[in-house]
């Protein structure tokens, strides 16, 4: 049974957000529009985090593509009152949309803020419903959703496939010969918020190689 993990090389990433766009298209993520987005309601299973430090001209921009970490010790699974959020045998943290009661405790517990809520019934722009992916369920109003590592189209998640810079890798972390295993052992490898004990399975390769 593979134990899935992802590696993202920050030296190759140009923050084009093709990964974010491909994810939304693949997974039938509903449209938000400018007003809803300004209110903080947009859904981005895969989001590129941007941070700018320093004052001009000594500025440093950091861009980190952030899917769900699919933690080995997921805080979200621990707190879900009904087991709508669960971890499967392949190490993926998944969501049972039909069971979710919309309490949002999992969202509150996640330190990476990778979870999204359907504040209203999902909407698509006129005509865009024709492009929905039949392999992925449409989530109803009032439930939580997030990145699934494209469990329906493994072993290549949509974000990885779309990346034009070949910055993303995916595979079995328990196979010592897989690309992700080798890269995860690289001295450039790090994970987000490592000291929280969540054991995320998304590794990043530091810039500046």
């Amino acid at each position: 049974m593979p134990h899935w993990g992802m590696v993202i090389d920050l030296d190759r990433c140009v923050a084009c957000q093709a990964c974010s766009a491909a994810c939304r298209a693949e997974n039938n993520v509903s449209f938000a529009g400018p007003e809803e987005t300004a209110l903080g309601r947009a859904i981005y299973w895969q989001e590129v985090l941007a941070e700018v430090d320093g004052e001009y001209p000594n500025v440093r921009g950091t861009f980190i593509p952030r899917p769900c970490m699919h933690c080995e010790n997921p805080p979200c699974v621990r707190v879900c009152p009904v087991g709508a959020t669960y971890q499967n045998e392949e190490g993926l943290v998944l969501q049972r949309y039909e069971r979710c009661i919309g309490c949002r405790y999992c969202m509150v517990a996640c330190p990476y803020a990778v979870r999204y809520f359907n504040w209203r019934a999902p909407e698509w722009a006129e005509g865009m419903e024709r492009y929905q992916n039949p392999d992925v369920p449409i989530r109803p109003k009032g439930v939580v959703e997030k990145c699934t590592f494209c469990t329906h189209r493994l072993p290549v998640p949509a974000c990885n496939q779309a990346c034009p810079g070949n910055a993303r890798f995916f595979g079995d972390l328990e196979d010592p010969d897989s690309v992700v295993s080798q890269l995860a052992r690289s001295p450039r490898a790090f994970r987000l918020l490592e000291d929280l004990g969540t054991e995320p399975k998304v590794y990043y390769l530091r810039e500046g190689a």
Partner: protein
Amino acid sequence: MNKDDKEAVLFKPVEKTGRGFYLVVAGLVLILAWAAYAYSRQIVDGLDVTGLNRPVYWGLYITNFVFFIGISHAGTLVSAILRVFGAEWRRPITRAAEAITVFALVLGTGNIMIDMGRPDRLLNIIRYGRFQSPLVWDVTSLTVYLTASLTYLYLPLIPDLAILRDRPGLSPWRRWLYTKLSIGWQGTEEQKHRLERLIGIMAVLIIPIAVSVHTVVSWVFAMTVQPMWHSTIFGPYFVIGAIFSGIATLIIVMVILRRAFNLYAYITDQHFSNLGLLLMIFAFLWAYFTFSEYLTEFYGNEPAGMRVLFAKLVEEFSLMFWAMWLFNFILPFILLSNRRTRTVTGTVVTSILVNVGMWLERYNIVVPTLTRPRLPSPITSYTPTWVEWSVLVGSFAVFAMLYVLFSKLFPIVSIWEVREGEEIAAGGVVAGHHAEAGAD
């Protein structure tokens, strides 16, 4: 004034309905209708109608939930703790306090259900409940507490129901109601003995249940890893805060009941003075816990926590934070430590301030942490909408309505317990109960 004249005032709200009742009920119905309309918009459009967002996933509803569960500790304190310690002055106010507990629990659980994205799936908690989840601990302990409180409200009501059942001039449905609910109470020695024992057991049991309730409510926050939530002090902190806001609510309810039902012979200035002192003690306890919490966070200098700390101390939450200190500690200390201001009015004003301050305290716990997530976030603010405010106002209206209806059906002052207290004070011996030094 002979006993019947004095006691007449206890029966009057139940037996006579004046214009005031209809006016109050009409006003409350209007507010409730508006709140129901607001909630209906949420049913139709989803939680989109609130100001909640990512990362502020929880806001007013959860604040209200913690606030009302906190208030529910009023009943437990007065009825149970004072009873266990033999404080006789609890007798006229014990039922009013227990009613606060039951109705506050209703509003607490109501606000949680309003916060859910899928309230139609509420039963999933029973079908699929996971004991590892602090929310399930919450549901469990709240269910136990609500059941125990209802029992603890009902048991001492039985002798009064029998008194009402035997009153002349009752309408047929009322006689039927009181007969059914008084389950054959005749006031025999054996019945009285059994009732005293049952009430005594409930009084002792309900104290740890109440402590567990607000502890697990705090653990919903403390069991996450979020900055300024993940604190070991939360359990006792929330319990102290709950009893604090409970006493304040009890004082407010008492002054309203006293005025509305002319209960000056039973709810005396001494009650307010005693409860005012208790309120001040809890103001100090609250201040101690809050200061410990914030000083520890500050000295730790841990970045994620410091961002939240400064959001509260000097940034956009500072007005609410310092108002909270003013209302919960500074003003109560000034007003209650001085005997000249520890009057009925002073105590009531302080109680209102404390209730506002404690609501602010709950808001200050829930929201600031969520506005400062560890990873960069485009949104860092929360503005509640009219729907959320309407639900808050509606919650108070539901509370008031339940109270008004309760005191229309049942005597809000426990007649038999007050009679028993007077007999004890006169040196008599009552079944299962002896005259105690320490009465009043």
